[in-house]
């Protein structure tokens, strides 16, 4: 009745990919995370609950695209916020280009899931914000902003107010706004999570194009397995309570990526592995609901 595809091992890499991972490994390390811990601070203090992050370590190489994935409550957003300097860590080290991270800074751009464009600034002025804060003149900032708006294809909307844009456009402006600072790394916290499926896949394509054309490293948090496989070089899989790394997967799908690959054997193999890691066999989850039949006999939905 059911046919199961024979999938390759998710660790099988094509020669090109092996070569790619080898060159990536030779690049300089941009971000180094060593034994990062974050304790749960609840109303009754830290002690009782397991830590949000219990010792997370990994390295990010220059111009790598890394996705962080995990079930809800695994601390992936917290991890990203600590890297961005928005939340203090309870232990461990975060080194950005060899320097300890203490607070937010323009070298780590962030794009959030919620829309964070400044409503009182036009699209162009939003993108100018970073350069203006670092003391660039108005004209230089404006030229800079227009260039980045061009890159995300929103030149025509330069003088619109943020509330006049669609969700996808808002996130494109947010990406342009971050990139206008020339950050070494772009930290993205489920940036497409609030978008509908079609806009979302369009945004994924955009992001890959931008990443290809700009010297930037991306750390991308998501809970969407397909999104992670489509975008990432490596996927860091986090487990919950305490948040820890279950596995770092080298995505076995060739570049350049496109949506059509989502049915390729290597894609499916990677996805299957991710599913195993994130949703390990859960006897509770597979049980049927204790329902009484409330339809007429013979009136079957799944005949």
């Amino acid at each position, binding site marked *: 009745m059911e046919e199961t595809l024979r999938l390759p091992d998710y660790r099988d890499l094509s020669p090109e990919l092996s070569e790619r991972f080898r060159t990536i490994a030779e690049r300089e390390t941009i971000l180094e995370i060593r034994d990062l811990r974050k304790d749960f601070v609840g109303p009754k203090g830290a002690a009782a609950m397991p830590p949000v992050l219990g010792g997370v370590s990994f390295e990010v190489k220059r111009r790598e695209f890394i996705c962080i994935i995990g079930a*809800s*409550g695994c601390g*992936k*957003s917290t991890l990203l916020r600590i890297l*961005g*300097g*928005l939340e203090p860590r309870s232990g461990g080290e975060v080194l950005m280009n060899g320097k300890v991270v203490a*607070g*937010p*800074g*323009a070298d*780590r*751009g*962030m794009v*959030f*899931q*919620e829309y*964070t464009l*400044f*409503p*009182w*600034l036009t699209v162009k002025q939003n993108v100018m*914000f*970073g350069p*203006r*804060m*670092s003391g660039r003149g108005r004209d230089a900032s404006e030229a800079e902003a227009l260039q980045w708006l061009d890159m995300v294809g929103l030149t025509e909307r330069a003088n619109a*107010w*943020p*509330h*006049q844009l*669609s*969700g*996808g456009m808002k996130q494109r402006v*947010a990406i342009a*706004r*971050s990139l206008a*600072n020339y950050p070494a790394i772009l*930290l993205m916290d*489920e940036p497409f*999570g*609030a*978008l*509908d499926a*079609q*806009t979302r896949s369009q945004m994924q394509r955009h992001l890959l194009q931008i990443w290809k054309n700009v010297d930037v490293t991306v750390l991308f948090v998501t*809970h969407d397995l397909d999104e992670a496989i489509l975008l990432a070089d490596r996927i860091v899989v986090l487990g919950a309570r305490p948040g820890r790394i279950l596995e770092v997967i080298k995505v076995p799908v060739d570049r350049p990526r496109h949506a059509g690959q989502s049915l390729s054997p290597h894609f499916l193999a990677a996805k299957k592995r991710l599913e195993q890691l994130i949703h390990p066999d859960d006897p509770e989850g597979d049980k049927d609901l204790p329902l009484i039949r409330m339809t007429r006999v013979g009136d079957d939905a799944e005949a």
Partner: protein
Amino acid sequence: MRAEPPRESIPTPPGPGPREGGRRREKPPTYPGSAFQVRKPLGRRANAWLALGAFLLPLLAWCAVSYLPFVWHPMVTVSDPGSVDYFQKGMQVERHEFREENRKAVAEGRPQASGTRENPVYLPAPHLVAKALVTAFRTPPQRAGDPWLHESLGHSIRIIVLGFLLSAVFGVPLGLICGSFALASRLSEPFVDFIRYMPAPVFGALCVAILGIDDAPKVAIIFIGTFFQMVLVVANTTRGLPPALLEAAQTLGAKRRQLVMNVVLPGVLPLIYRDMRILLGWAWTYLIVAELIGASSGISFFIYQQAKYRNYDNVYAAIILIGLIGLLTDLALKGLGRKFFPWEKEA
């Protein structure tokens, strides 16, 4: 992690769609009882009619009470005292008293008094108040030294503007600082909260003792009445700024000073402006107290004087004038607000 419902990719404007070019406009479908849908907006025309109705209904009620004798009219104005010895021509007596006296007169075979039913003198008819509104500015004051109505009004407005500007100049920055920095908030807000609960009028005597009897204590009362509220309201509004905006600004390299000047300030300014519009209404409330301390003055003094002379039509005219000034100021400020803050979505 954060589950949010998927949003539409293109925001749809609230209310009816853009008007079509020609004369024909699609009428939106109506459902039975659609005027009373929970939290559903009405059309633009309906809103305008209802706003008109909001004023017409009370006016109609007033007209009914004034011009339809059977609705209320509890008094009788005596036109002929007849045989009732204490009745005088033009005197108002209560209806049951009038009837009682006439009943006695009939019983004793004396001539009855006659008169017309009227409302009490403190409720003049709309047309009298309307006339007073028109003539008030042209009528010289009863006593030579008293101010004209426009002088009284001008004086009141001067006091309000002075007092309110003074509290805004200090209150808004302090509120912004309290809303931005926990240290400032913890240090000042408990005390401000403590004073806020003292009714401003209780400071009246003190203000006169310290500042003399002229305008200074009146301005001070307005200041006391609005300043402390303002600090708390502005601080709360400031704290309502979405933290995500601050975080985004920080990751874009904004430092502390830049955060306050380039994010907090522009982010909350439209909301503070709205708060100011509400607080300006409070200032009028305190005005009435302020004008009765020290040397009485202004519109409230005018109202008290007119009430003393039993010119109730003038009293109503003055009260309506205050309402009109308030309404027009607010409409003007609302319009200006749209100019100042073009990014604000239509509420």
